[in-house]
């Protein structure tokens, strides 16, 4: 196939999946959050159960004036949301939805994931700095401090998976989870890494992922009760929409990473490998849905933690625990 045609098809597909997914997650958040608070949530938009609420919100945001403060650094200010959005969408380039359903099967897939997803910190810092607003600046700096602190346990948790799988290619990691672990008679048992002893790693990854997303209980960068809206304070219109969609898209992205690394990705135990290309996307989306619900669930349950508690949790607990986890996994890998 023509290279450019293939590229465009892949781009449109990834953008479509990510943005539609983000809208679905926004709707899920509105609805699940309301019901957790004994409310009904969106009800009228779209006719039934308010299914069109995210679309209506998006249209409303598009109509708003795209304001920028007079003192703002216009170029950086305007560019920041797209940096965040880009880093989120680029994650999906290497996520395998099936053995052949991957936009680019890099040998260094896991490395690429971590590298590209930390670019969003840059976008947030750009937004905070360029807004010429004290709330934005404090929010941006808090975001930088938090994301750097939680990037470490995230990376270290992934290192343990890479050690256990023996490869950095995400397809390779999924195949390592799909292959036979042991056999009972003739029945071949395969298990994802979560069941192969990565409990600690998975817990650390999920905690760090919530912190990376700056969601409650780790939403100090936004903390509306003290920082108005953090680095988002000055944004309106389409650029705010970009940040908003980016937040939810990165929820999907981090859930997809967690599902691929710990929950077996597109592979489902008992499903023959021949069907993986057809059923794979469905299986992966199901796993993503479970993890996204988990993110929504804790957001509507837990209170926000303080900035110093947040830093202490990362540096005193998660990073030592992650190093310990690597040591254990590496020992088992060498011994068995």
């Amino acid at each position, binding site marked *: 196939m023509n290279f450019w045609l293939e590229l465009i098809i892949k781009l449109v597909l990834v953008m479509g999946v990510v943005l539609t997914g983000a809208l679905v997650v926004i709707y899920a958040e509105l609805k*699940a959050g*309301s*019901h*957790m*608070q*004994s*409310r*009904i949530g969106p*009800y009228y938009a779209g006719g039934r159960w308010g299914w069109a609420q995210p679309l209506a919100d998006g249209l409303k945001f598009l109509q708003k004036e795209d304001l920028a403060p007079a003192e703002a650094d216009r170029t950086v200010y305007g560019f920041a949301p797209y940096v965040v959005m880009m880093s989120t969408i680029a994650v999906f380039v290497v996520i395998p939805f099936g053995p052949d359903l991957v936009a680019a099967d890099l040998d260094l897939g896991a490395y690429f994931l971590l590298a590209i997803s930390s670019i969003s910190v840059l976008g947030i810092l750009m937004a905070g700095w360029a807004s010429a607003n004290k709330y934005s600046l404090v929010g941006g700096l808090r975001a930088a401090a938090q994301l750097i602190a939680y990037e470490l346990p995230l990376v270290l948790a992934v290192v343990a998976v890479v050690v256990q799988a023996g490869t950095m290619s995400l397809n390779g990691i999924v195949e390592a989870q799909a292959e036979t672990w042991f056999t009972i008679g003739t029945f071949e048992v395969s298990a994802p890494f979560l069941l192969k002893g990565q409990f600690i790693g998975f817990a650390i990854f999920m905690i760090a992922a919530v912190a990376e997303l700056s969601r409650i209980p780790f939403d100090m960068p936004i903390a509306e009760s003290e920082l108005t809206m953090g680095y988002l304070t000055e944004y309106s219109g389409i650029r705010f929409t970009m940040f908003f969609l980016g937040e939810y898209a990165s929820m999907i992205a981090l859930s997809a990473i967690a599902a691929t690394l710990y929950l077996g990705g597109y592979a489902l135990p008992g499903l023959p490998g021949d069907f993986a290309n057809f059923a794979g996307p469905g299986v992966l989306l199901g796993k993503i849905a479970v993890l996204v619900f988990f993110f929504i*669930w*804790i957001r*509507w*349950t*837990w209170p926000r933690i303080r900035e110093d*508690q947040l830093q*202490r*949790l990362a540096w*005193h*607990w998660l990073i030592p625990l992650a190093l310990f986890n690597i040591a254990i996994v590496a020992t088992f890998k060498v011994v068995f």
Partner: protein
Amino acid sequence: MSKQIQFPFPGLFKGMWLTLKTMVKKAPVTMYPQVQEIPVPRARGVISLDVDNCTVCMLCARECPDWCIYIEGHKAEQPSSKPGGKPRARATLDRFDIDYSLCMYCGICVEVCPFDALYWSPEYEYSEHEVANLLHNKGKLTEWLATVPDPPSLESR
């Protein structure tokens, strides 16, 4: 560095169990415009006025924390009830307005009225498109009197 993090187990998971339980339960919501909500009898919906009981004493207007009650009146001569008696002055109510855009529904006016001229009514559907229309005059306040529920019957011993 004074205090270590106290890991809040199992409280965190109790909270998650609670939100999960709440989520699967049916939300106790009345879909208001389609389904009328029935307020409790003693709900503080709107204040109604019984003009005959009012003596223009101004206590309600003075006690109102929001100063949302406007009263004007005059003294009118009325003949004595007994033959040969002196004509008496009687206070007559000219204006009694309550501005519901200012009212905070504290009910102090109802409590303070010495002649039971003010009553709470549970009626609540009187929203307006213009703020000025929330100023209810004497006639409108009297209309609300029809919606005042009967006082609760005495408790049996």
